């Protein structure tokens, strides 16, 4: 199940685990990324908490945790090469995997059509 937030995160949900990243639209708006800071595996976040930071030459932006949960894996590849977020934001450049506290809460997020409308 693919879901989106109004803050431009995407979630690929399988069972009670969501793989989270930022959307192509967001990556385009940010421009070339030069630094990514990810949370540590094991950390717990509430929906809306700042879970990661991305920085372009110009500015730093927060990436929010889209739902309540615990980080079970992070993607070191985007720390080693932040430009991956620009080249493949909705594929190889996922940020972290989140074990959802309440998988049913995902139903309230945007589906792809609604997100596309939002950024149109």
């Amino acid at each position, binding site marked *: 199940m693919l879901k989106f937030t109004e*803050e*431009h*995160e995407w979630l690929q949900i399988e069972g009670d685990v969501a793989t989270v990243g*930022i959307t192509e639209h*967001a990556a385009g*708006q*940010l*421009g*070339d990324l*030069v*630094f990514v*800071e990810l949370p540590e595996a094991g950390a717990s976040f509430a929906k809306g908490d700042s879970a990661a*930071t*991305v*920085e*372009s*030459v*110009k*500015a*730093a*932006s*927060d*990436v*929010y945790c889209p739902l309540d949960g615990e980080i079970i894996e992070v993607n070191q590849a985007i720390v080693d090469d932040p430009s991956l977020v620009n080249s493949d934001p909705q594929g190889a450049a996922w940020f972290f995997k989140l074990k959802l506290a309440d998988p049913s809460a995902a139903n309230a997020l945007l589906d792809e059509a609604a997100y596309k409308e939002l950024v149109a």
Partner: protein
Amino acid sequence: MRQTWRPDLEDISHLKHTPLHALHLSLGARMVPFAGYDMPVQYPEGVLKEHLHTRAAAGLFDVSHMGQIVVRPKSGRIEDAALALEKLVPVDILGLAEGRQRYGLFTNDKGGILDDLMITNLGDHLFLVVNAACKDADFAHLKKGLGDTCEVKMLDDRALVALQGPRAEAVLCELWADVASMRFMDVAEADLHDVTCIISRSGYTGEDGFEISIPVTSAVDVTQRLLEHPDVMPIGLGARDSLRLEAGLCLYGNDIDTGTTPVEAALEWAIQKSRRSGGDRAGGFPGAERILAEFANGAKRRRVGLKPEGRAPVRGGAKVYADAEGKVAVGTVTSGGFGPSVDGPVAMGYVDAAQAGNGAKLYAEVRGKYLPLAVTALPFVKQTYKR
């Protein structure tokens, strides 16, 4: 993700346009409000490529938002304008030869900096370029300070573009061959395709380059001719900021303001010997007492380069400490970001004089962590001015 700016949500109807505004839009620029103007922050290539291209070839910047001011002596004697302006800036203007330019500062009675500017002797008048955000206040300050001896006029019928980078000379030579004989801080009036422009060999990137003042009616035409050259790319405010930061140059409002003095800001070089204690025309500018005392005794704090050890950028506003626990505060970062040519984070800021020596290891607070950084000589990149 929180976007740092959402231009679509802002009311931009009150913003002023430079003469090149439509050209920016046609080039696909992303526009942002800056100093009351709707300005290009980046073009489709993006900040990173724009920055690197400027250092590798040539970048073209619209800086028409800046103020261009003429100060013309009523007596007809340029010395009178020079001496009048010296009452407002701690700079040797009398000794500024015709066709030469110099960096300067407007100071206030407390020794703070009202603005920084470029000052040119154009023979029968002085030509000033001041910051966009300060230009109305500067104009009023000049009118008040030297309106009795000089005619002070804001030029609102001229655009200003900067052409910067190692290929700038070759590109501009195709329009005006004499440009090759100019050296750093020379200024000449020149006809570019029958348009009389004021060209100075200066800039705000640390690279060799030129700033070109163009009559509004020809601004688009001259700019387009420069952009047609394959070595030239349009550059937005984003890369302008990262380029000047790597070059160690101050941004007014960030790194210098009314709360900082020229000595604190490490701008002693901008105050020539003739205006310092023991000089022919020592003092005689606002705040001279404090500024000259700081020359003699040093200032309590100093602007320095700060090089973060890791990859994380340290931005303006970050607090700086002597220790990794954030117990002993010693200063603040005033500008910081990622330097594409350095390929790493770069910053500058003010630290206590005791911590201002090159190599001092300090810590900046970023998102609750204390990141190590080293006090470093500025600039971060080698300047390539043609002296």
